[in-house]
Structures are given as structure tokens and as C-alpha cells.
């Protein structure tokens, strides 16, 4: 099972490319011209998202650099303690919502402190895999559209995020 998955992870890009090119050849299409045309629109999109990325990077980096995440941790620690949830998971819970790469560094930290096979260590791993960076994704996705009102996208994303955290805490008690 794991071998199949790691093969598919490694092979996804090459296999998809091969299928597309082979199919194009069979249809006798001018595939190279099509490729160049598509690549042009792709580059345009990349430039369009740049302003949104600058905005999001500003917000995320100021949160981590100002040390305000530490304050949040101290505020919420008693609550977690009373719910019997390892306090070491706190920074991960908050940072995961705003920064993917930042949370991987924190995951390394947590595993070093509590050990990768402890309860807290396993929850940390499932949590960092099972939740997406809500704010970053929404800013990026809606950045390429003309949308100003996201309607329930934010609420829905947050609900999914909290579900991921909750389930990872519960499931590691049993597995």
C-alpha cells in the first residue's frame, strides 16, 4: 500500500505528462504549439497572484516575528490542559492555519521534544498532515478571481480545519 502510494507520488508528474503527449500524438495535433500557448497563460496567472502573495507573506511573517504566537500559546495552555490535550501541540494548531512551511519546522521541534512515537508526537504528525493552511489558500485562490465577498468559503474552511485538529486528537487515542 505505502509502496504504491510513494510510486504514485513520485510518478504523478511524469506519468501525466506521458499520457497527455502520447494522446496528443495519436490525434496528430500540433502539441508543441499548444504547449507554448498554454505556458503563456500560465505565466500570466503566476504574475497575477504576486500582489496577493506579498500581502499574505507580510501577515504571516509579522505574526511569527513579533512573537505574538507565544502570547497566544500562554493564553490557551490552561484550556488545553483541562481538556487533557498535550500543550506542545498548541503552536502547531495555530501556525498550521497560516503557514505550511512554518508548521513543518514546528513539527520537527515538537517531535524532538516529545519523541515521534509518543501520543503527542503522533497527533502532531497527523495534525500537520491533515490540515491545510486556510488563510493562505483562500487569499491565493480568490486572488485570481474578481471576488470580493467570499461568502461561506472562510467559515467552511475553518470548520474543515477544526475538524482535522479534533479528529487527529481523538483518533490517536485509539490507534
Amino acid at each position, binding site marked *: 500500500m505505502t509502496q504504491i502510494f510513494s510510486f504514485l*507520488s513520485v510518478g*504523478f508528474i511524469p506519468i501525466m505528462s506521458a499520457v*497527455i503527449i502520447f*494522446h*496528443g500524438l495519436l*490525434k496528430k495535433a500540433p502539441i508543441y504549439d499548444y504547449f507554448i*500557448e*498554454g*505556458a503563456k*497563460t*500560465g*505565466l500570466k*496567472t*503566476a504574475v497575477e*497572484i*504576486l500582489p496577493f502573495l506579498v500581502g499574505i*507573506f*507580510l*501577515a504571516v511573517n*509579522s*505574526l511569527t*516575528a*513579533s*512573537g*505574538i504566537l507565544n502570547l497566544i500559546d500562554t493564553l490557551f495552555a490552561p484550556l488545553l490542559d483541562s481538556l487533557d490535550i498535550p500543550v506542545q501541540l498548541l503552536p502547531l494548531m495555530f501556525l498550521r492555519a497560516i503557514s505550511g512551511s512554518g508548521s513543518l519546522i514546528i513539527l*520537527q521541534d515538537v*517531535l*524532538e521534544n516529545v519523541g*515521534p512515537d509518543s501520543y503527542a*508526537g*503522533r497527533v502532531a*504528525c497527523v495534525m*500537520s*498532515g*491533515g490540515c491545510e493552511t486556510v*488563510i493562505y*489558500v*483562500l487569499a491565493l*485562490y*480568490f486572488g*485570481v*478571481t*474578481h*471576488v*470580493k465577498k*467570499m*461568502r*461561506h*468559503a*472562510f*467559515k*467552511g*474552511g475553518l470548520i*474543515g*480545519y477544526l*475538524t*482535522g485538529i479534533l479528529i*487527529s486528537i481523538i*483518533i490517536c487515542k485509539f*490507534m
Partner: protein
Amino acid sequence: MMNYIWAIILLSSILYAFFTGNLAALSDALTESSASAVEFVFGLCGIMAMWSGLMEIAERTGLINSLSKLLLPFTKLLFPRQKDPETLSSIIMSFMANIFGAGNSSTVFALRTMEKLDNENHKSSVASNDMCTFAVVNMAFAPIFPVMAIQIRTDAGSADPYSIVVPSIITAAVTIAVSIIACKYFERRSKER
């Protein structure tokens, strides 16, 4: 929405840094983050051009059409009113790239999908139901197979780095289900209003 989130994050960080004497670090972070955003896009440019090029071939030669027909029963559940084969296949490709952890590739497909949905929405300033559902569900799909976490566990000397695979898959499945239900619930409620 974004206005408030952005303002609150930035202002509270600046205030907190001011009172804790972290202003120098924050100042560095602010200038550096603008530069790192540009670097990130540079990295994305190449892969974006590559996938867009390949997908252009797949679209024009009809491959995408057949693929989306094949997966129609599944996408019909989530996007009952979506008819356009290109949009549907773009959605499917985003999900698949996410499942196989193809990193930046999934971002590219997601952005393509959002652009297509935006056109169907007549570039309106209010998000459509399909946009919300896609964004929320795609987020939940993100990391079904936790490749990075397994790597970090191995580095940390875990006795059984793969022990988190099954819990991760279950967590992802529940998250996807809850996300779908939440979206459909919000949709129905906004229709009644």
C-alpha cells in the same frame, strides 16, 4: 472579510512587537517577506507554465473531455449544476494532484479552476456556490498521504514512521466529509435568505 483579517493580523503583531521590544525583528520580517513572496512566485512560474502548457494540449486534443466524462458521477455530487467539461476536469486534476502530494502542481490546478469558475460567475464580486465548495473541499483534500510528516518522523528516529498513515487517511476522510456537508448546509441557508 480579508480586509479585517489582514488588518487584525498586521496591527496586533506590530503592537505586540512594540510592547515586547521585538520591533527590530518585525521590521526585518516585513521587508524580507515582500522579497520572499517574489522568490516564491519565481519558483512557481516554471511549474505553472509547464502544467498550463500540458493541460492546453490535453484540452485541445479532447483528453480532458473523456476524463471528466469518466468521473462525472463523482463530480455531479459535489457540483450538481456544473456542466463545462474543462472546469470539471480541472477540478478533478486539483483533487488528484492533492491526493498524490504533487505540491505546487496542485496549486496550479486549483488556480486554473478558480479562474474558470470566475468566468462562469461572470467575474462577479460575490463568490459562487461552486467556488466556495471547490475551495473548501480542495483544502480538505490536501494531504491524504502525509509524505512530509513520514520523512520528519524518520529523521526524528521513530520506531514506526508509517504508524500515522492510517490515522491520517481517516482524519482526511472525516475532514472531507464534514467540509462537504458544511458547504452544502451554508448553500441551502443562503438560498432561503
